């Protein structure tokens, strides 16, 4: 199926998210879209999928103009989409999710999930997915959830599959598997639209790359183009993709985690006898695929987990059993992984969010009374210092773009003397320019003598920031390795191999290749 977009324009109020975009998706090809945050990629795909109505322009399927009044029409036309944020009903089973909107019924009108299950098994087999149709989606790891999304599209006979940043949550190995699946789909004559910020993957899998900047197509690039070329095409200026940082000067190991166990509400050990320490002036990066205990580990340190055993000491003081507020007062700065849910109160103003965990301390409060003037002054300073783009300090934080929301949280946590700094996914959804700035701030915090713990699922970020890397798998530490460990070794460890095995496995492979 050949898909053409002609002169697609999409406006949100005065904002032009897509500006006369032309795009042709040929059958049997992987067509990648590149562009910085807010370039308009997702918007374009939502138009294509019938979720948004284009302000101008038309869509042609096999040369014939079509009008999509909703995703139903797009699906009927053979377009499937896997969204950046999964569109799965968490409490439904896989089969129910797949059947939804595409149900088969028996004579009496009752739902026939059996057909759906059979189809799921069949597709799983065909593409090597390992998906149990009766598993409840919220219990599944993200990687599997993503496959469910792909099954959802395939079961509807999608000829064009749109994948919006599908690799953000996958292990390197899962990513490889996904890329293989994409190729397999193309071999079956389907086409794939692939959106990713990870240039290496884009280069590896694409047939065509289209770069979008500020809503406009800036041009196509061959998969053979270099990463630097692609990056500067995206941003419109040359970017340094590497952070310049001095080697670490580690001091005393003031932060120590000993034999930490965290139980989930159902009694499972989600953090399983973890021990490590971080020295002053050192960055420890915790790598691993999402859902391997990182969240619980950071939350346990912050006193946010209920069932914790073992010991966490900071400057010799035990943190386990302390309240969150005491831990914050002890000088722990924390950037949670999901800023919208955990880091910000969306309806509060930027100024309020900038004092969210210090609202009751001097100089922002006096007794029970808050001091709006100092809160405002603090906001003005931080907005300036961190270059937070907002209408005003009194704008609701929820109206800021993702990157700017992240800067609010970072600004809040980095603007007081810290004895430990923990940041989960510090630059998730942040554009290249801001990443540079935030990374510099993190390194500056380290150089100021604070132990820093970075939790990230992005290997690029881990490799860029880390002095040492701890890899988490299934709640356990697979090993703590130096900051310059190779991507492949880390990938193996993230898939559950111990550091030793991974290293030897790796050298074997290299030996074999030579």
């Amino acid at each position, binding site marked *: 199926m050949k898909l053409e977009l002609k002169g697609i324009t999409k406006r949100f*109020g005065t904002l032009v998210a897509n500006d006369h975009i032309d795009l042709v998706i040929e059958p049997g090809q992987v067509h990648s879209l590149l562009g910085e945050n807010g370039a308009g990629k997702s918007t374009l795909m939502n138009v294509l999928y019938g979720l948004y109505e284009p302000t101008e322009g038309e869509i042609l399927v096999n040369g014939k103009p079509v009008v999509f009044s909703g995703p139903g029409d797009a699906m009927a036309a053979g377009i499937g989409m896997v969204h950046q944020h999964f569109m799965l009903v968490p409490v439904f089973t896989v089969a129910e999710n797949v059947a939804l909107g595409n149900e088969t019924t028996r004579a009496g009108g009752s739902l026939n999930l059996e057909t759906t299950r059979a189809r799921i098994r069949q597709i799983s087999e065909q593409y090597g997915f390992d998906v149990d149709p009766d598993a409840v989606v919220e219990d599944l790891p993200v990687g599997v959830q993503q496959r469910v999304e792909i099954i959802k599209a395939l079961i509807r006979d999608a000829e064009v599959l749109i994948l919006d940043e599908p690799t953000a949550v996958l292990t390197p190995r899962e990513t490889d598997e996904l890329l293989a699946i994409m190729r397999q789909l193309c071999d079956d004559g389907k086409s794939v639209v692939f959106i990713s910020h990870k240039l290496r993957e884009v280069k590896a899998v694409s047939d065509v790359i289209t770069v979008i900047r500020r809503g406009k197509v800036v041009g196509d690039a061959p998969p053979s183009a270099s990463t630097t070329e692609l990056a500067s095409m995206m941003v419109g200026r040359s970017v340094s993709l590497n952070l310049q940082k001095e080697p670490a000067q580690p001091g005393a190991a003031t932060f120590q985690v000993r034999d930490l166990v965290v139980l989930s509400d159902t009694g499972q050990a989600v953090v399983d006898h973890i021990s490590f320490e971080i020295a002053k002036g050192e960055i420890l990066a915790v790598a691993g695929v999402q859902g391997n205990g990182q969240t619980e580990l950071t939350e346990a340190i912050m006193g946010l987990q209920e069932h914790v055993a073992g010991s966490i000491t900071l400057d010799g003081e035990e943190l386990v059993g302390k309240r969150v507020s005491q831990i914050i007062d002890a000088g722990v700065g924390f950037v949670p992984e999901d800023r919208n*849910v955990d880091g910000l109160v969306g309806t509060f103003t930027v100024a*309020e969010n900038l004092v969210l965990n210090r609202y009751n301390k001097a100089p922002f409060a006096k007794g*029970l009374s*808050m001091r709006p003037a100092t809160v405002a002054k603090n906001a003005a300073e931080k907005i300036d210092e961190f270059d937070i783009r907002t209408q005003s300090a009194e*704008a609701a934080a929820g109206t800021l773009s993702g990157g700017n929301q992240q800067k609010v949280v970072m600004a809040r946590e980095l603007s007081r003397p810290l004895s430990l700094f923990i940041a989960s996914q510090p630059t998730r959804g942040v554009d290249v320019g801001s990443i540079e700035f935030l990374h510099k701030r993190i390194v500056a915090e380290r150089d100021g003598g604070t132990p820093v713990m970075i939790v990230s699922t992005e290997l690029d970020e881990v490799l860029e920031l880390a002095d040492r890397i701890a890899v988490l798998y299934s709640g356990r530490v697979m090993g703590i390795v130096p900051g310059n460990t190779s991507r492949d070794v880390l990938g193996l460890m993230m898939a559950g191999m111990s550091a030793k095995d991974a290293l030897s496995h790796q050298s074997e492979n290299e030996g074999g290749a030579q």
Partner: protein
Amino acid sequence: MPETELHPETGSESVLRRIVTGNALVSVLSVLMALIVGGLLIALTDEEVAESAGYFFSRPGDMLGAAWSAASGAYIALFQGSVFNFEADTFSRMIYPLTQTLTVATPLICAGLGVALAFRAGLFNIGAQGQILIGATLAAWVGFSWHLPVGLHLLIVILAGALGGALWGGIAGLLKARTGAHEVIVTIMLNYIAIQLVLFLLTTPGFQRPGSTNPISPQLDSTAMFPPLFGSGFRLHWGFIMAIAATVFIWWLLNRSTVGFELRAVGANPAAARNAGINTTKGYVIVMLIAGALAGLAGVAQVSGTEKVLTSGVAASFGFDAITVALLGRSSPWGTFAAGLLFGAFRAGGVTMQTSTGTNIDIVLVVQSLIVLFIAAPPLVRSLFRIPPPGAFKTSGKRMSKKADAAQGAA
């Protein structure tokens, strides 16, 4: 943002547009629409209208005239009973209706604040009714069975009322925090339990008048009562000042205090609040304690101000009206205050409407709820009257900054 260059409009134009597209007009039209619908109901069920409808085709004017006079008469009476009685002989009788409105508004405001506060902390407090009752009970008991000096007595009565309400609200908060019990269920159930408890107490001699077995408590000591605000000719009492004070306090609490910051954070995003070191479970208990205490103050206003005795009906339906009052006031303290005044006016005016025109009192409930519906749905009113939406002349950029302005204004 360079707004000025996007809007090179002259001052008068912008004022006009603001009025045409603004919320004030929509609110006025909402009230108008509700009044029209209510007026139709009044006219339809009026005896004279029905009589003249019988010969509508021979003399249609009669029926239309009758319908008009039934509806307009009722509404004029409503106004006379709630704001200003221009037919009265003396000035004090002229403004008497307004003082009645304020009197009725007092418990509505206090209880409304309780519901609003809970709302801001993410809790749906349907229990104001029970909290008022328990607050009133405790306040009344202290008021008639303790005998204390002037000043101190009233103070203790107020505290007792607040305590009673806080206790009742606190149970719901505690159960929510400790066991996760849904506060909607618990507060509904506590309402029923409260009324049974009061009914029981009123059958015990300790709560009855000497020599009587009627379920009415003795009058509160005069030392336990709110003094009248404008002399004994008016029912308005210092409880209204208490309601104003409560509004100011809640405004301060929500917008200027650290506790309010915590409660709002818990309500808006409990997860982020927890991450910021705020104890959300403690938050639930605290907010329900304060919310209950506010409803308890409504009970105090009833027993120490307006009714002066405890009966099982002392809370009227204030606890349920308080929900609407709070929601109509968008859960902001002054919004609740204003909505309380509006509802007070309806209740006060309804009395006059009924007695002087014979209009059935239930129509007030109908008009009142229609107004709320219309006010709550500006797009409906806009589309009915073909008013352009507020953003029609503006860009979204401007809209965002307006929102920001509003936020600033509210803060």
